[in-house]
Structure formats: C-alpha cells, structure tokens
C-alpha cells in the first residue's frame, strides 16, 4: 500500500486554476523529486498535502486514511513533516526551545517512545553539531544551520513522510553538502521523502523518481535517468519562454 496517494487533485484560487488533476502515489521509503519552473505550483501542492489549502476537488490518502479534510496539525500528528522553503525555525526562540516545541507537540504515545525529552533535545542538536548553541536564539543561525536543525527536529519527531521545500535554498554551497548528507540519512532510515529542488544533478543523485510539474499539472514522471533527456523537460527548463530558475 502506498504511504501517500493523491487522486485527481485540483485547486482553484481567485478563479485561477493552480493545480490541475494531479494524481500520483508514493511508496514507503521512496525519495521523490518534484521539479518544475517557478510558479508551477510545487509549493502550493505541498500546502495542499500538509492541509493549509483545501483542494477544490480530489482526494488524498495517507496510508489507508483519507486525509482530504484533516487539519494541518492533525496531519503532522499522523506523521507528515514539512520543511519550509523560508525556514520553519522560530527565530525568537532558542535552539533548545525550537526542538522542544516540536517534540512536545507529538501525540502522547510517540512522546513516551522518546524517553527523556531532555536527552532527545540534546540528541537532536548533537545530530547537527549545534548543541553548544542550545541556549542561543535561533535567529542567530545561518541559513544552512537553520535548515539542518529543521530537518533534524522533523526526523527526531518521528515523521514518516517528509515534504522538503527547496532545502538548499538560502544555504551556502558548503552547507549544501551537509544538508544533502542529512537527506541521505533520511533515506537510509527508510523515511519517505518528497523534495522540491531546482538542482537537477542533486535531484538525480538522491531521488528514485521525479515528478515534473508545469502550470499545475504533472507532465512527466519517471526515474531521473529516464526523464533526463526527455524533450518535455528540456522544453520546460530550457525552452524559449520558460522562466529560468
């Protein structure tokens, strides 16, 4: 059974159709790249998947549960984790509080599994080498550090499906390597990952499969090797009127 399946999903906002009949499914443990030009609806699709936008039509299933009208907080509790394009870290809170607030939001049974919450917080910060900054405000971190922290806390809070929105955006080239390694870690742990990314080499390196979105429609899907030379992809990314990314 797929961990996520999306069927005939459409979204119209202000009489503009932003998602058109999107259908796909994701198996447990798969890493899937979601690519497409700017404004093609990738972030919007994530907003629908995490429950912030209600689709105009279509259904979504997480495992065997219909989540189409489940609230964002409830989806998070079911195991859907979101990493935001513009950082989901709370800059006014300390690093420690940033992790704590995520772990505390877990359903009770899951929180019990963590054992000591204090150790879990420390473990999370250790994972990304930030425990010596535990009491600092997160606003003082670099983009790369924030991204690492956000992914680590999502991992530590037991999420099964990761929605990563441009995890290397706003991250220095040096830190990008570390972010990529951490995503590799997710894959090793058998997590399912949906990742929006512009960097095609990066995508083909870590993804099992790629979905190409254009003007709100899935126009192409397949293994990175298969689609790399597809005419459609070339057109979208390098065509005359395509927005450069």
């Amino acid at each position, binding site marked *: 059974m797929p961990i996520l399946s999306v069927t005939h999903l459409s979204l119209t906002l202000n009489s503009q159709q932003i998602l058109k009949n999107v259908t796909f499914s994701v198996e447990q443990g798969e890493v899937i790249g979601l690519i497409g030009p700017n404004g093609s609806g990738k*972030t919007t699709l994530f*907003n629908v998947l995490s429950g912030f936008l209600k689709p105009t039509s279509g259904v979504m299933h997480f495992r065997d549960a219909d989540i189409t009208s489940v609230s964002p*907080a409830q989806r*998070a509790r079911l195991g859907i984790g979101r990493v935001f394009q*513009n950082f989901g870290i*709370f800059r006014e*809170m300390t690093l420690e509080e940033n992790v704590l607030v995520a772990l505390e939001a877990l359903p009770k049974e899951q929180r019990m599994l963590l054992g000591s919450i204090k150790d879990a917080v420390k473990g999370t910060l250790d994972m990304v080498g930030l425990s010596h900054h535990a009491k600092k405000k997160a606003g003082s971190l670099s983009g790369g550090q924030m991204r690492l922290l956000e992914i680590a806390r999502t991992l530590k809070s037991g999420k099964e499906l990761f929605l990563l929105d441009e995890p290397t955006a706003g991250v220095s080239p040096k830190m990008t390597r570390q972010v990529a390694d951490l995503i590799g870690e997710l894959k090793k742990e058998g997590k399912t990952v949906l990742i929006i990314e512009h960097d095609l080499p990066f995508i083909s390196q870590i993804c099992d499969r790629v979905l190409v979105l254009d003007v709100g429609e899935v126009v192409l899907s397949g293994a990175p090797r298969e689609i790399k030379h597809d005419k459609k992809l070339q057109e979208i990314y390098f065509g005359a009127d395509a927005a450069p990314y």
Partner: protein
Amino acid sequence: MPRFYNLPEMPFFFHLITVIAIALPAQLGYTFVFGRGKILHFGPIGVSTVAAYGTFLTLNATGSFLLGLCAGVLMALAFSLLFAWLSFRLDSDGLGIMSIAVYLALFAVVLNWTSLTRGALGLPRIPRVPFADSAMSFALLTTGACVLWTLFFLWLDRTKLARQVSALAEGEWHAKALGISRAGAHIAAFVILGLTLASDNFFYAQYYHLLHPSDYYFPAFVSLLMITVAGKPGSTPGAIIATILLSLLKEGLRFLPFPSAVLGPLRLMLFGIILLAAVWIQRDTLFPKKRTI
C-alpha cells in the same frame, strides 16, 4: 475619569501596595496573550466589566462573596471563550476591530440596563470580604493573591503552552506543521487572561467600596496596553517592573497641585506619550515580520 475617588483613609504605602497587587495579575495575563501571543485581543476590559458586574450583582443579591466570585469567574470565562471564538473566525486585524466593538457593546448594555446595573450611577456601598476589612488586611489579601498569580505566570513561562503560544505568534503555519493546535493553545491563553481579570475585578470594587462604570472606559484598556508594551512584550519580569513603575507614576501624580479635572486628562496624555515612546522603541520586536512560507 477613572479612579479619582477620595483615597480611603490609610497609609499611602498600603494604598500603593493594594493598587499594584490588584492590577498586576491581569497585566501578566494580557502580557501572555498580547505580548507573547501577539493576539490582537482589544476587549479585555469588556471581560472585566461583565466579571465585575457579575460578581457584585450576585453579591448584592445573595450576600455571598463566594457566589459572587463564582459568578464573576463564570462571566469572565464565558466572554473569554466568546473572544477566543471570534479570534478563530477572523483574521488578526479583524479581531482587533471586532473585539473593540464587542467591548463597546457590552459596555453599552451595562450602562443602559439601568434596572439591573443602575447605569451610570454604579453600585455603591460594596462591602469588603469580612476578614479583610482594614486597610492593612486588604493589602495583605490582595498581595497574597498577586503573589500566587505571579508565581503561576513565572511557572507558565516555562511550560509547553508558553512555547506553543510563542511559536504560533511567530509562524502560525510553521507551528501547525509541527502538530500544534492553535485552538487548544489560544483558548487556554484567553481563559487564563479571563481568570486574572475576574480575580482583579473581584478586589477592585471592594477596595473603593464602589463599582463604577467609569472605571471600565477605554482609558483602562490604554493603561493595560501601555504597560504590556512598555514592559518588553511577552516578558513576565518586564511586565512586573512596568506595572510597578507606572503605578507609582500614576499614584504620584495625585500629589501635583492640580484639580482632578486637570489631573485626569493630564494623566491620560502622559500615558499616551509613554505608549507612543514604547511602541517606537520596540517597533521592530513588537510584531515580528510576517513570515512567508
């Protein structure tokens, strides 16, 4: 203008202590909701009004302080939940406007339902709880309540609820994506504020032996707002210091050789200027930049 009755005959020191002890709990409650949570709830004085009238109308009718307190708490809870519900139905700015409107509506009801509330005359001859009738014992009683509330808020600041309220304030979507329920956290914040308002208003009219509607005019809210902003928004110690300093200032103004017709507006103007300065100084941190996703 509010709070310009003849001072009860008691040492000025007890008066200061009592005034601060009565004001502080709701100040801390509002610091939690508005300072930490950035929730534009501009109707706390509306909750105060219904809590105060609920308390003392019940007291007058039954002669029981306990029943009066219960009635005040119930009224405060009911209207806090109303404001919480509004906050879920409206966006942030909408709530700001709507909460003022609800407050004005509540106030109009209190003023005009004269058969029940005696309207602009207020409720006179309000007794104090029998065991705290003297100036000193009343100061002790209110200080006791205030200390308990203060300890509660110092504890609250380190709880999960405080972190969730902060997280929601900084990025609502980001918080929800972690599994934080806005309804749960915000209802708790509104309810806590409501309880502090019920507590303050249980003592306030007793202290002056009078429940007068002029104490629930809009300037009462300006004072609440000003102290929250002046005391570093969201910080409990900041709110405590600001409450003490501004209460001293407010009470100190009595010693200026002006008639009360001048002192009232003067005080309001002074507070307006302090509010302006505090907002200006904290303009970057009062409201964090709207987060994009």
